[in-house]
């Protein structure tokens, strides 16, 4: 079997570039090329202050979620794992929501990012702890269910204690991720954190490959499982946590992308990491363009759109896995 990894990555880069350009043009106001380079054009602020941050964030968040999903699937040896399905994004959102209750001073964006990443880190460590030494695919999924429940309860509590309607809106915004009305400030906050996270996750490739042979098999090949756990936890916390902090919960990216790319680049976990980042950026860019084109008064939230898309995909994946096992 020959995998076209290089060609796939080249195609994803080209597609991503094309979508990024489209993303700068498309929206309630159509902005043609000639308006881009001309600061005197009245459409210029829309490109610079609305479309550009939105496009850059789509790339950063998509890459973060795509690679986090691929890495988590490699670690758990389970194609259903992703920051969304295992509750990491929900716990990050809970961390972000928590800042609403620390007082007005805690609403600085870096505080929100730190709290979201802390929530994500706690989630990954809890997943590993709950799954324990006998970490099978099933125990990870069950641990994810527990985390989702805990995060859901926490958010429900935050909603019921919300001091004012403004806080309620804020909380709901985090639960339904979106890229609207973001600024370059949010991009420059998230980008370095995500970049660091991506670097950490990329460094786990060889160890994730060895885990194909199970934990004992990997350890017998010299893989330090303790170091791998911490690197992966930090990488997922940085990527998924920083993403949630700036855009809220956008699910299923890390689930869909590695699954679609596996037949093209091979199932070896290390070979899937970088293509999944590229594929994640492409998917989020495309989805964000689509939500802008929805007819009607208000835009569909990106997180909701991804869930509508991802839910049936999740079902189909489960059914195909069931058939393979049976």
């Amino acid at each position, binding site marked *: *079997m020959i995998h076209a990894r290089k060609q796939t990555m080249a195609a994803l880069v080209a597609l991503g570039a094309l979508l990024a350009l489209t993303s700068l043009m498309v929206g309630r106001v159509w902005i043609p090329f000639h308006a881009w380079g001309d600061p005197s054009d009245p459409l210029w602020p829309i490109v610079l202050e609305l479309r550009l941050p939105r496009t850059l964030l789509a790339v950063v968040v998509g890459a973060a979620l795509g690679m986090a999903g691929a890495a988590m699937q490699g670690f758990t*040896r389970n194609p259903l794992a992703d920051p969304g399905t295992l509750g990491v994004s929900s716990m990050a959102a809970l961390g972000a929501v928590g800042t609403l209750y620390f007082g007005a001073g805690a609403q600085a964006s870096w505080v929100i990012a730190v709290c979201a990443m802390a929530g994500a880190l706690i989630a990954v460590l809890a997943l590993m702890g709950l799954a324990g030494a006998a970490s099978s695919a099933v125990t990870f999924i069950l641990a994810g269910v527990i985390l989702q429940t805990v995060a859901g309860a926490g958010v429900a509590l935050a909603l019921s204690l919300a001091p004012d309607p403004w806080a309620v809106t804020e909380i709901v915004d985090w639960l339904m991720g979106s890229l609207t009305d973001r600024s370059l400030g949010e991009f420059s906050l998230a980008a370095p954190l995500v970049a660091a996270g991506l670097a950490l996750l990329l460094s786990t490739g060889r160890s994730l490959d060895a885990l*194909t*042979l199970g934990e*004992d098999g990997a350890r017998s090949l010299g893989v330090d499982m303790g170091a791998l756990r911490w690197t992966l936890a930090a990488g997922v916390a940085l990527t998924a946590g920083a993403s949630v902090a700036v855009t809220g919960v956008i699910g299923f990216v890390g689930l869909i992308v590695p699954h679609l790319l596996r037949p093209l680049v091979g199932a070896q976990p290390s070979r899937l990491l970088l293509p999944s980042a590229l594929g994640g950026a492409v998917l989020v860019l495309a989805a964000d363009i689509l939500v802008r084109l929805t007819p009607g008064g208000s835009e569909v939230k990106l997180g909701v759109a991804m869930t509508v898309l991802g839910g049936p995909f999740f079902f189909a994946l489960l059914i195909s896995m069931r058939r393979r096992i049976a």
Partner: protein
Amino acid sequence: MSLAAEGLRLRLGGKPVLDGVDAALVPGQVTAVLGPNGAGKSTLLACLAGLRRPDAGGVRLDGAPLASLAARARARRIGYLPQSAETAWPIEARILVGLGRTPYIGARGLSAEDARTIDEALAAAGAADLADRIVTTLSGGERARVLIARALAGQPDWLLADEPLTGLDPGHQLDAADLFRKLAHEQGRGVVVTLHDLSLAARMADRVLVMAQGRILSDGAPAQALSPEVLARAYGIEAQVRAGAAGPLIEVVGRAPPGGA
């Protein structure tokens, strides 16, 4: 070259799993570790592979404590085949065998020399024709060969295999047993396997260690170490041992009478 367990003791959940195990293993030999379920065979193997740290005692590799060796260095000397025989992803057999090179490769990935070693390992395990197959589609016998090739790709001096013959039909069991003998006798590796099949152990092993309740009951050549008395004490069975064409034949008559032996 030597690999030796010295006074290994290990308790798991308050229960002693290894209760003072001493065994000096010899290269160029197949050593079979036998014993009833829960006797501590797998735990002993995991300790010898450096995957489990005993509460007391230790393992020495060429006289030096195994625990003092870095994980990568240890992985180059000792190959280990876990009982689970897990192959999580649908990857080609050649890529799976390539995982055996993990303790050697740096940032640049597999070299041409690594690729040659992988081909040699596939050939040595009789799996050359499987190189391009997807591992999750292999039969049990095929997968066993590929996994043995994976261990050989690391060019270890010692090969420790936890129940490598379980789940194979008699023909493939014999093939795998012959392969282990070849690795020991022709290539001078130290091969240690845990087994449940007594006659197969008697046939393939140069030396057997019979364990029960975390201790070694009997240690020696199969014809001496597998006596009816030892089998009665270890397994609680009544067995007759006869000389066969290919080593001792063990016929299990039935459960040993309680309080007997």
